[in-house]
Structures are given as C-alpha cells and as structure tokens.
C-alpha cells in the first residue's frame, strides 16, 4: 500500500499503462507542458515524450474525434476534458461516433478510447463548471461510464478503463484531487463491478463519486447499520451487487450528486422496485440535488449537494416510518 493523493493515483495509473503498452497516448488541453490543470499528468511528457503526450488547441470536438480515429487505427488514446461541461462541444464524437462505430462496422472495429473529465460541485466554480453530467452519456449503448470515488478506484479503474477495448468515460470528482488515500497498485478492479464499502443490515445506500465520502460521514453520524455500495460504474451498472444487498436489507436509498429529474439513480430505484417489490420493507428513494443549476454562493452550493446531515435525517425517517422522506426544499417550503 502506498499513500498518495487522488490526482497522483491518476498519474500513476496513466504512467503504468503507458509503460505497459506503447499504444497508450495522452492528449488534451495543457496536459503536456503544464502537466494538466489539475496536475493529473505530472511527469508524463518528460518520460514518454511529445509523440505520445500532446497539448491540443482548445478544440474538444477535434481532439475527441482524433482519439476515435487513432483508436480505430491501433492506438489507445486517453483524452482529458478539463471540465465535464466541455464535453458538450465534443458530444457528437463520443455519443454518435465512438459509441456506434463497432455496431456500424459489423463488429470489425473497436474504439478503445478513454475520455477523462473532472466533474462535480463544492469548489465554487459556478453553474458551468460544477456538474457531474454522467446522465448525458448514460443512455448511450456502446459507452461505458465510470465515476471515481477515491485514490484506489482512481488507480485501479483508470487502468481498467485504458485496458478496456471500448470507449470509456471516466468521471473524476474535482474536489477529491488533493485527497490522500492508500493505494494498492496490485489491486485490480473491473468495470461494471460495484465496491462494497461497508456491510450492514438496516438499509442499502448506493452512491458514487464524491458522494461516497459524504455517505460514510452520514453513516458515522447516524449510527445506523447501513450497507454502503459504491456503484463505481454507471454503465454497465452492477445489478447483482445492488439486488443482493437490497434482498438482505429490504431498503434502498440512492445518493446522487445530480438533479432530481432524469438521474441514473432512477434506473437503480426502478429496477430494484420492479425486481424486489414484494420483499421491500419501505419505498426505495433517492437523495439528489434540486432541479437547479449549481449555484455559486458558498451558502447555496453547500446545500445544493446532499449533505451528511440531510442524509442522516432522511435515513432515520425512512427506517422509522417506511415512507419516503421529504426533500430539504420541501421541508423548507421552497418547492413542493
């Protein structure tokens, strides 16, 4: 085990894959000379040289598309989208090209690209630099979508994503880049496999990304015997792990850092409800952000994202009554 920051776990994974496989290359805005705006490519240009580590113009569409073309012709490009929102201008290349080209080549092509993006709220970046947006890409067959939650998953899942033969979107919670964690570089993780963070019998929490830490804190404060699952992969999500857990606990709450409407958690709740309806002890529900853009003010942003206190309140209510708790904005009378 080695102690390293989340961002160092990413660099280490990139470097280890580049050493293991000469077809792995990295490009994006300021990833080479400046070593990444979040220092997630520190030392890579120096070690691997300018052929494989490249700065691009501010042209997400061009470099994401270039990754697709290079991947088809035998490279394994990793591209960095500095803020997840910037994927908007490159979405065509990921959703309509990369995700479809194996299908449209009768299975003769693979597109092994990794699109990394920093995401999430909590740092005061405002509404255009703070969303998670995995929901943009989750409904696109052909893509895999991973969301990292700590240094270990950053290392192990990044390596798995690069080794994967298909397009993988990897979301990196920006707020975690500086966080330290223990990393076992020999530990392999599989895309599509959830992580059991804590076993428990009273209720199952499914979460991912930076919300996993918030859930841990809520569990500690509440004293409730929660089973906490880090879903880790949004597509394809680990149905077996979630269903087995809820079979045991009879209760489910999904904690999401994304708006109430149209979230990936709805998919989890719908599946669990349909599959385990008769054995549930209470209504499965979600704890999300409100349906608003991410606000800038520290006072507002802190409440925008689910807090540990609010999770404690909702867990306690759900276990006590078997009913879905109200959202904080309902309790405050702001919105029904």
């Amino acid at each position, binding site marked *: 085990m080695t102690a390293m920051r989340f961002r160092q776990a990413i660099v280490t994974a990139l470097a280890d894959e580049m050493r293991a496989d000469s077809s792995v290359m990295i490009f994006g805005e300021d990833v080479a000379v400046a070593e990444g705006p979040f220092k997630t490519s520190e030392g890579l240009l120096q070690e691997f040289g300018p052929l494989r580590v490249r700065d691009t113009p501010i042209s997400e569409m061009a470099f994401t598309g270039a990754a697709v*073309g290079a991947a088809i012709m035998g490279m394994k490009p990793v591209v960095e989208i500095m803020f997840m929102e910037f994927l908007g201008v490159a979405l065509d290349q990921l959703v309509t090209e990369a995700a479809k080209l194996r299908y449209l080549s009768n299975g003769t092509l693979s597109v092994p690209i990794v699109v990394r993006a920093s995401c999430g709220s909590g740092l005061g970046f405002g509404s255009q630099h703070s969303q998670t947006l995995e929901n943009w890409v989750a409904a696109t067959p052909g893509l895999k979508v991973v969301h990292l939650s700590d240094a270990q998953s950053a290392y192990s899942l990044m390596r798995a994503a690069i080794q994967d033969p298909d397009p993988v979107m990897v979301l990196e919670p920006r707020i975690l880049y500086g966080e330290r964690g223990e990393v076992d570089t020999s530990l392999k993780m599989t895309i599509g496999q959830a992580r059991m963070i804590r076993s428990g019998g009273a209720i199952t929490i499914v979460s991912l990304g930076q919300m996993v830490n918030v859930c841990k804190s809520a569990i500690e404060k509440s004293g409730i015997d929660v089973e906490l699952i880090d879903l880790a992969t949004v597509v394809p999500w680990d149905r077996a792990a979630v269903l087995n857990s809820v079979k045991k606990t009879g209760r489910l709450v999904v904690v999401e850092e994304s708006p109430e409407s149209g979230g990936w958690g709805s998919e989890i709740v719908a599946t669990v409800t349909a599959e385990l309806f008769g054995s549930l002890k209470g209504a499965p529900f979600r704890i999300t952000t409100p349906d608003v853009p991410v606000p800038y003010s520290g006072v507002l942003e802190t409440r925008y994202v689910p807090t540990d206190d609010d999770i404690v309140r909702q867990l306690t209510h759900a276990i006590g009554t078997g009913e879905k708790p109200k959202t904080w904005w309902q309790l405050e009378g702001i919105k029904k």
Partner: protein
Amino acid sequence: MKTSLQRRQDIKTDKIAQYERMVEIREFEEQINALFAAGLVRGSTHLCQGQEALDVGIAAVLRPDDVVLATYRGHGVALALGLTPESVLGEIMGKTNGCCGGVGGSMHMCDMSVGLLPTSAIVGAGIPIAAGAALAFQVQGKDNVGVAVFGDGASNIGAFHEGLNLAAIWKLPVIFICDNNVYGEYSRINTTTPIEDLHTRAESYNMPHFSLDGMDIAAVEKGMTEAVNRARSGGGPTLIEAKTYRFAGHSRADQALYRPAGELEQWQKRDPLKVTEEGLVASGLLTPEKIEKIKSDMKVRMQEVIETCSAAPEPTLASMFENIWTPVKASK
C-alpha cells in the same frame, strides 16, 4: 465473386476499369429510386450522381491500407473503394449480405479490407476522425494516410475548422477533400457561405490547398497524387476542393425544385461519365459501341445484384444485440 480488395486493385491503373466503375456507380444510384418505389428500401438515401469521377479518382490513388472517412452520400465512395454492389445494396436493403449485416442502412457503409471506415450520417464528423487515424500513422511511424471526404456544407461546421487546425499544427498525414457539389441539403452554397472557393479556408490554417475539376478523373488523380505524396513524406495535410455538381436532390424527399433553371443542364454537359468517355474514345481505348456495351452489360449486372439482395436473408432478431461492445478478453 470478386472480393472488395480485388475490385479495388482492378481500378488502380486500368482506365477502362475505372470507367466501368463509374458506370457501375451511376447505374447503382439510378436503381435506388426504383427500389424505393417498390418499397424495398427504407428511410432515406442520398445519391451521388455527378460525383463518380471524384469517388473513383480518390480510390485509384489511395492504397487499400489508407483509410477513408466519408459521408451519408457514400454509395459511390464505397463502390469505388471496392465494396461489391451486393454488399452496398444488401446494406441499403437491410439484409444480412450487407456490409454491416443490415443494422447500418444507406448512410453507413464500412469495409476495413479496403480502408473504408464507417461512413457518418453527421455532417463533418469524419474530419477529426480522419485526422486521428493520421495521428495513429504518425505515432506508429507508418506512411499510410487518412482521408476525409465531405460536402461543401461541412465547411461551415465546427468539426471542419477544429479538425483542420489540429491536423495543421500536428502536420498529420491527412487529406481533406471537400466535394463542393454546390448544394448543402436544400441550400445553394452561396446563400450559406460568404466565399466561392472553399479551399481558401485552409489559408487560415497555413495548409496547402487547391481546387480541381471534380468532373474529370484525370484532374482528381493528379491533385490526389500531389496531396498523398505530401502526406506520405511527412509534409502534412492538404485541403482539396473538388468542384462537382449534385445531379440529384439532397435525399429521396427532395426533388431539387430550388435549382435555377438550366443549371443542371449546364453541369450535365460536363457529366463525368461523358468527360471520361470522350477521353477514352480520343485515346483509342474505347469505341462508342464498346461504351454502349459496357452500359447495357451493367444494367444486366445490376438486375442480378438486385435479385441477389432481394433473395438474401433478413437479419435475425439476435443480431441487433451484437457488436455493442467488444467481447471481453482475459484481463492483464
């Protein structure tokens, strides 16, 4: 039946075979309308009559291990690169003998044995991908080239500008071919674009550029050879504007009633088939009688293709679930 690769080699230097391929493309496209009327083709389709010299000229100069990104107006490029009429029509009819097994349709042709990456239904999308293929060749130290073929309308989409800029700064071995057929969907290019010579846009990217007569296969081969030689020898990308004309409407639904009177007829005087025939007769390679024979034989051949594809099996329901992800190998 010949393979795609054999058909590709046929047209490498043989002028008569090149002409026959152009006749094949023309006859193929003419038959699509009839097949629509008969209810044998679904959705939409985008025909390329008038652009046969460009498609065949590109295919003649490139090697089969070069890669081409083309568009939804892609039947001609596919046939020129070597795909059999059966695999193209089979795909258009959604049959299992199609190049994509019937899940792609008219806008999605692919055959990696001759370097045709899946044609895209999104305007301009192939431009960055061709640059990326060229990036792979550059990193791998190979002398292959990437090619993007796109319409005049694509010169106004972001992918064109971003892709050309990226290719220029990285000196990628890629050739951008703007097939200026005068119309972007239903709009004449002069109503959507403030310049007439689209190739001059490459000036902004400090990229070599020129236009050529897309109705003349000799001119296409000459221009392509210059650009390909530059790319293979490390000289970077080129933007070529091929001046052509779209004899048909944008798609099946479009009768092209917006065309100024006489414009089509004016361009038809320089029909690429006619231009080629004149050259071949003048050089003594063909006679008018032989030309008629080629055309009548092609009509017969195309009817056989239609019969074969009509009789080909429909896809199984299970086939729609295939090829979403690559089968998982044991992890390292």
